């Protein structure tokens, strides 16, 4: 009896804690992404070029209070300080980009000054930036995932040509899938949400966009 009661209580409290731990499980920013894998002439991957378009609410929030010559129109120069803030904060989150070459983690460097900028078009803000590989790598199997572990930012692949290859060696094939295409993670989703606090930190991985390039 007593044990049952204590079990009940323990369960309830654990539930409360879990509910709090998975505390960022709702997106507030929606990114529609396009990515390009950049190759050197020798066939090694040198970097990943991203173009992330933010949803209109976030775009509007980001540009709030920014000075511009023409109302509602922002030039690249006017957006430069904001782009810097974006890139600086994104460093904290490893640019939400997790790359692997032949199964091994690949280190990405921060975008160099001038290698990132913001564009404002049709009330949508797009952040362009290139993440160079710290060491260019030749790999049969180069892949990367894009997701926010805390799922504050929701990433979705653009409808048209979400991923492209720049100067890739001939014979390389590209494949990608968004979270929607991933085979039924729903059962896992529910369970990890309610039962597994350990997973909460990486909760967003379930919404990953997976991109892979296989080269001969």
């Amino acid at each position, binding site marked *: *009896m*007593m044990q*049952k*009661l*204590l079990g*009940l*209580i323990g369960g*309830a*409290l654990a539930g*409360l*804690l879990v*509910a*709090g*731990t*998975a*505390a*960022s*499980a*709702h*997106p*507030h*920013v*929606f990114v529609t992404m396009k990515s390009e894998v950049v190759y050197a002439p020798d066939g090694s991957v040198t970097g990943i070029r991203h173009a992330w378009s933010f*949803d*209109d*609410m*976030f775009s*509007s*929030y*980001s*540009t*709030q*209070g*920014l000075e511009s010559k023409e109302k509602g129109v922002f030039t690249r120069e006017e957006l430069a300080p*904001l782009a810097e*803030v*974006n890139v600086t*904060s*994104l460093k904290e*989150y490893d640019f939400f980009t997790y790359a692997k070459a032949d199964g091994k983690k690949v280190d990405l460097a921060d975008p160099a000054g001038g290698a990132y900028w913001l564009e404002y078009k049709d009330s949508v803000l797009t952040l362009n930036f290139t993440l160079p590989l710290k060491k260019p790598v030749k790999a049969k199997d180069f892949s990367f995932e894009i997701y926010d572990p*805390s799922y*504050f930012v*929701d*990433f*979705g692949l653009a409808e048209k040509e979400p991923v492209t290859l720049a100067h890739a060696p001939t014979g390389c094939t590209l494949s990608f899938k*968004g*979270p*929607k295409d*991933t085979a*039924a*993670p*729903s*059962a896992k*989703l*529910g369970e990890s*949400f*309610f039962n597994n606090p350990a997973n909460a930190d990486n909760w967003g991985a379930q*919404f990953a966009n997976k991109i892979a390039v296989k080269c001969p």
Partner: protein
Amino acid sequence: MRGRVFVVGGLTLVGMLLVAGILDGAYAQFGAPRPPAAQVPDTGIAGWIIAKQAEFYRAMSGTIRAAKTDGSAVWTLLGLSFAYGIFHAAGPGHGKAVISSYLVANEETWRRGIALSFTSAILQAITAVVVVGIAAILLGATASTMNTGVKWIEIISYALIALLGARLLWVKGRGFVAALRSQRSTPATGTPAVAAPAHHDHAAHDHSHHGHAHHSHAHDEKPHVHGPGCEHDHDHEHASAWGHAHGPEPQELAGPGGWRRGLTAIVAVGLRPCSGAILVLVFALAQGLFWAGVAATFVMALGTAITVAIIATLAVGAKSLARKIAGGRSGYGMLAMRGVEVLASVVVLVFGVALLAGYMVSERMVGF
């Protein structure tokens, strides 16, 4: 009791489904752009909740835009906001855990739980409107300035949660120790809990004499309710006399002490504005429809309050169920109930500290 809990849970789900269905119709009706299907699996309760709230959120910007030319779109916006509030709060955050733990730690009623949920949600809406109103409209501040402002509010809010937890733990911890002592001195004999032996244990009394002048200070953690006459007396901490607890007196909810008792909890939870509300407000402002954003924010808070209130009610229900089970065994049962309160206090404290330390992110502010 358990039956009632399930009924409430079932009704919530049905309500959510209904709202979702009505809104699906509303898109078509008002010609608002249908949001792209959210990128989440479409089964599983958690996934479904997230998908729905993302859907409502994304549809909001479209309706605000539409409202510029078509006034009727405002109704769609309000409907969306309400649904978003309900679903959004169903995800973690929004003080559900803190409020629920607070209610469990204290000998609180479900009515008070509902009152706390609504007041804190409305306060959240007010903070959001005030922040955006002052920062964006009066000062023309940029997003990063607003982020900084919200961060400070956040820190204060988390610190308050930690303080609330520490205070609860102090009071409840002493209550637990007192119950433990009385348990040791009088082994369980099967007497009803009402005749709690520790009633005269002086360790359990907290004669806070300054309570005469500022008695509201001491009321926060009072574990149970007396008639109003008692409030003028010194503040007894009848830590182990939980058999005294009974339903709320109307004057207890309305009286000055009654409201102030939960004030710390309300402020701790309600101070931090919801990121979603801030985004909607700024977006509405940019569209020249700030008032629509304000209306949406308050309707959103209403939705949030409903969800939080339901969860708070479940928490209170679970406790009274536990109390009923424990009621059969005077000594150990009481000890267990005291233990529950201590644990719930610990939860509040842990939450506050974890949030403050940045170990736990309640809801990231739009930080990049």
